[in-house]
């Protein structure tokens, strides 16, 4: 459903490149020798059966896990080991498989939290909530309100997120990730556990984010229909290995992928 053409993506500037990544916990190999790239402006999907290493891959990208082997190049800069907040500083933002909102805070505060990196006013002004600190607060409130409008969650602005239904929580989480104005947005199963209507809403938001803000998105998703519709390119993982990489149509036709999903013995 994307308006971009294959040619756009092929000529697109490379945003992120992972090279020969291997990650293991004790003896368990979660990821083995995986390489792929993400170009600017695309929606890149990572799919695979359960335990394929998809979430581990996202965790590697945003610095939560440190791969034993391999490198990650983001915005032309190669890095090996970094703390997650540094990934955030570079412009990588994400949502989580199991909603990881700040349960004790309101929707507004959660999305404001996404703008943490953009707020700098020092302790002195914070103490008095005056002058620069107050102006900063209000300026960011304005930006947050835009996101709230965009996601159509105005009525729940002041509600503590712990009290929201699951679908809305997912939406707030997306809002929080967007608030950081990321150059790369990682979505870990944004539609898990949703009903059809909610899925449609969420798909629409993802496409809108991609097209209105031009945000590059990498997403993990189980619903094949959704993935095929949304994604520009797809990486398929199975047992920590990459088994296919390409346009939706190519991946769909790949024998390895079909085997993996149908469960052919390895």
């Amino acid at each position, binding site marked *: 459903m994307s308006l971009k053409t294959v040619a756009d993506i092929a000529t697109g500037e490379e945003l992120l490149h992972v090279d020969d990544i291997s990650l293991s916990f004790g003896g368990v190999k979660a990821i083995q020798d995986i390489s792929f790239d993400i170009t600017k402006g695309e929606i890149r999907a990572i799919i695979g059966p359960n335990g394929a290493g998809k979430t581990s891959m996202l965790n590697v990208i945003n610095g939560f896990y440190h791969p034993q082997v391999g490198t990650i190049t983001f915005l032309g800069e190669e890095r090996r080991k970094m703390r997650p907040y540094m*990934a955030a500083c570079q412009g990588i*933002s994400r949502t989580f498989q199991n909603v990881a909102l700040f349960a004790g*805070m309101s929707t507004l505060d959660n999305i404001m939290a996404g703008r943490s990196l953009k707020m700098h006013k020092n302790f002195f002004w914070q103490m008095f909530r005056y002058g620069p600190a107050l102006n900063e607060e209000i300026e960011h409130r304005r930006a947050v309100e835009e996101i709230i409008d965009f996601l159509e969650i105005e009525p729940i602005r002041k509600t503590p997120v712990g009290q929201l239904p699951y679908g809305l929580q997912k939406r707030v989480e997306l809002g929080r990730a967007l608030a950081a104005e990321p150059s790369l947005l990682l979505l870990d199963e944004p539609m898990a556990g949703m009903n059809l209507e909610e899925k449609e809403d969420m798909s629409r938001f993802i496409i809108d984010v991609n097209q209105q803000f031009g945000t590059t998105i990498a997403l993990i998703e189980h619903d094949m229909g959704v993935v095929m519709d949304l994604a520009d390119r797809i990486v398929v993982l199975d047992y920590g290995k990459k088994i296919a990489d390409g346009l939706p149509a190519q991946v769909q036709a790949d024998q390895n992928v079909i085997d993996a999903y149908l469960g052919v013995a390895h």
Partner: protein
Amino acid sequence: MFYREAGQFKTTYKADQAIFPIFQDRMAIAIYLLIAFVAIPVFGNDFFITSMMIPFLIFSLAAIGLNILVGYTGQISLGTGAFMGVGAYACYKLTTIFPDINIIVLIISSGFFSAVIGMLFGLPSLRIKGFYLVVTTLAAQFFLEWCFIRIPWLYNYNDSGAIEVPQREVFGIIATGASATPTTRYLIVLAIVVVMTWIASNIIHGRIGRAWMMIRDMDIAAELMGIRPLNAKLSAFAVSSFYCGVAGAMMVFFWLGAAEVESFDINHSFLILFMVVIGGLGSLVGSFLGAAFIWILPVILRAIPRTFGLDINAATIEHVNFMIIGGLIIFFLIVEPHGLARLWGLAKQKLRVWPFPY
């Protein structure tokens, strides 16, 4: 009926981001302040001011300090008593070295010393969580208690090992020492507590407070949002210990008049933790409610049997007090983990819709 927000439209984000967006709340605050600053000094007797209001305010401040750490940042501490002690001993040393500097300035400065010590013992919190942290704060508690005894320099080599508050004046009025009037001491304590509560509220509602709450609610997500755990946790330890330190210094200078190490022992750490839990984790109002509750409960327990003409052993009352506090801690944790502050909120909610049930 009087507590309505209907009709109060906010036209700017500034108005909506205000700490008390509702008019009636601002009025209520004004009334409380009026009572505290005018009515109590005028009508309260010495006992009420010295033995109820002053300790209540001081413990409220300490509870705010601990609440910043436990309630807002989710880092548990059993070292509050010792951090209060650092403030007290620091203030004592400062006023010995600089007898001419205004004592209020010194009280506030002593907070910086406990902030530094608090940060030092907060360092392990970067690698450990939950009750593992209890051990490091217990280490702080016991180690600092030992320092308060074994470093005689801290108490000016007094034979008794106690710090005794010298007489100091503020703008020509005796503010500390036995000759200071209860009202003077009360007003100074009140002013410091009000200003520091206001500052705490500002910090909590701003960028830094949000960072603390992010760490509390989901530290991993917070880090992935760009919060440096080091900065967030250490700043919480620093601010928390600062508040506790100032509270400790005020406790000795404006309330007790003299103190030995036992005034900063682990029982105080517990007491303040209880104030935070019963008052409400993550609530400034709760810190006040909790402090009032824990401090006033035994006084009421002592008064009740007497009003009915019963003579109950002082010890029995103390035992019953322990049982009630212990029971209430469990009760609140089970029924209302947000403590008295939530009950307070519910009461306000009821008031808002009164006379209808909802």
